[in-house]
């Protein structure tokens, strides 16, 4: 969830623009994912004002050895601006932006019963056809739906579950 202001996205956009220009998006992506996986203690140390800035910069430099220069530059910038804590969310935002530009949409499919592989594939292909995007779906089971399915692509929800239909029938009768 990219909450906490639009800051992380600004940094992610900047890095992605450089990466696109250099034609090295996957490499940058991998580098950022690695940074996003840094131990929380390391991130905290890099943002700790009790440690002299010079030493933190040196540590950041050492930690990012071998990474593309702009990614190292990003880390140095974040350390200078006391924004190191954002790194995890910058990585998330970067992933989202990459997917968005590649026309990939995330979908959540919730059904009352477990779907088999064929049904899943059929559903995903129908969804890609309807949205015009490559669908990367996650599947979940919720017996409370009683029947049918709930499909959520991005913010858009199509609720074709039996529970929702019974609920709207209830509202119609109550009126």
């Amino acid at each position: 969830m990219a909450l906490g202001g639009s800051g992380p996205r600004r940094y992610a956009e900047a890095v992605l623009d450089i990466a696109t220009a250099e034609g090295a998006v996957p490499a940058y992506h991998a580098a950022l994912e690695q940074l996003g996986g840094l131990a929380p203690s390391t991130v905290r140390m890099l943002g700790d004002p009790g440690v002299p800035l010079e030493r933190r910069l040196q540590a950041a430099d050492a930690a990012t050895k071998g990474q593309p220069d702009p990614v190292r530059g990003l880390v140095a910038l974040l350390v200078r601006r006391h924004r190191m804590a954002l790194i995890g969310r910058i990585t998330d935002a970067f992933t989202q932006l990459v997917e968005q530009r590649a026309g990939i949409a995330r979908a959540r499919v919730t059904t009352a019963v477990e779907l088999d592989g064929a049904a899943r594939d059929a559903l995903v292909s129908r969804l890609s056809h309807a949205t015009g995007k490559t669908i990367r779906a996650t599947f979940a089971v919720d017996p409370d739906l009683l029947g049918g399915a709930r499909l959520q692509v991005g913010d858009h929800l199509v609720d074709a579950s039996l529970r929702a239909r019974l609920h709207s029938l209830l509202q119609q009768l109550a009126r």
Partner: protein
Amino acid sequence: MATTSSEITEIIKAQIRGFDGRPEAADVGTVVEIGDGIARIYGLSGCMASELLDFGNGIFGLAFNLEEDTVSAIVLGDYTRITEGGEVRTTGRIAEVPVGDALVGRVVDTLGRPLDGKGAIETAETRRIDVVAPGVIKRKNVDTPLQTGIKVIDSITPIGRGQRELIIGDRQTGKTAIAIDTIINQKGQGVYCIYVAIGQKESSVAKIVATLEEHGAMEHTTVVIAGASDAATMQYLAPYAGCAIGEHFRDAGKDALCVYDDLTKHAQAYRQVSLLARRPPGREAYPGDVFYLHSRLLERAARMNDENGNGSLTALPIIETQANDIAAYIPANVISITDGQIYLETDLFNAGVRPAMNTGLSVSRVGGDAQVKAMSKVTGSLKLDLGQYRELAAFAQFGSDLDKATLAQLRRGERLVEILKQPQYQPLTVEKEIVIIFTGTAGYLDDVPKDKVGQFERDLDRFMDTQHPDVGRLILKERKWTPEVEKAVRAMLDEFKRTNRYTEPHGVGAP
């Protein structure tokens, strides 16, 4: 209503057969923060400005701020049942209220739900709460008077149907009383009234409703309440809801009157909502669009032209000032929006001048066009005379010798002030207002002692009813101050003065 069980079963069967089981499609978001009636929602990327949002469990909200990743929504009603992580759906609708004749005589909340225990409101029609006011093409000039039944208002600051006249004054100066008297006076005049109580004590509103009922005025009135204990959101939306109820009558070619009591509290409720939704504060911490808040509401008062049904919606907003400061932010805003103001003063109120209207500072910028011609003729010099009287009275306080002309002017002024006094809940018909004001301006009262003017007026009222109902009918028929009308009125007044004597107590002289 007699409904048999089989009928119900039949209806239900038909509904189930005809049930449209299409899957619901909506944009969804997640509540990330909830408190003070404001919900911050992540997602909802397709949400529209002011869209109604469904929080589930019958709780709704309005999209207030659309931000990059989140939407701030104001919750209508009980926000304590909304939890972080809860799902929110868009509805594709804007907030609406039920409207129509079924609302007349009812007491409802901001969303049109009944509060008077008289059962459900049976109406199929709804209207959007916040709509754009009719444009110039659909309007025409104010041309029909809206009689308040209050002498001082109908003579000096006449109100026309479709006008916006502000009632402004400190607390306890009789602002609400004027509005209530006006509503009472609309009985049988074909004007539907809507009284919107914003941020008031429930006890005061209960008293007002009881008063209206007592005077038979609830038969043409709807009361919309967003009390002091209701959410600020409800207080913020209440005037728009009341206005929508009135607009229904306006657009159906009828006349409606909407009283907003009061817009000061409305602005405060909006300030609260805006600050909580993190909109930047401006002067007195009100948000930057507080002017538009009131201007868009009051613009909806309109006189429609013949092609658009000839209906009207008159607005009587009320503003409470602090220590007579009409230059404060909200009062100055609303004064500049409205077509005039009735300015009430504590000093006058305490001096026994009730209604405590300051005749010098009160104006009606368009009502003169709508005033009954006979009234405007009779009251032509009234405002000027009163103004001169006030100046002279201030001067004469020093008690020096005054010449005869000045004394006569003082004498006249005192009596004019006396005849413009009027007790609460006693609105007068327009013909009586005309006759009584004529007695003052034409000098019939100059020899009546000041403290007997009230008695004189009451006796004359009865005399007109019993001896000369023809005079009232003549004024109503002519509507203009023709020589015949003046002759008839003078003849009646001469006869009245011959039969009734009002002398100074103990024969003491003037004034």
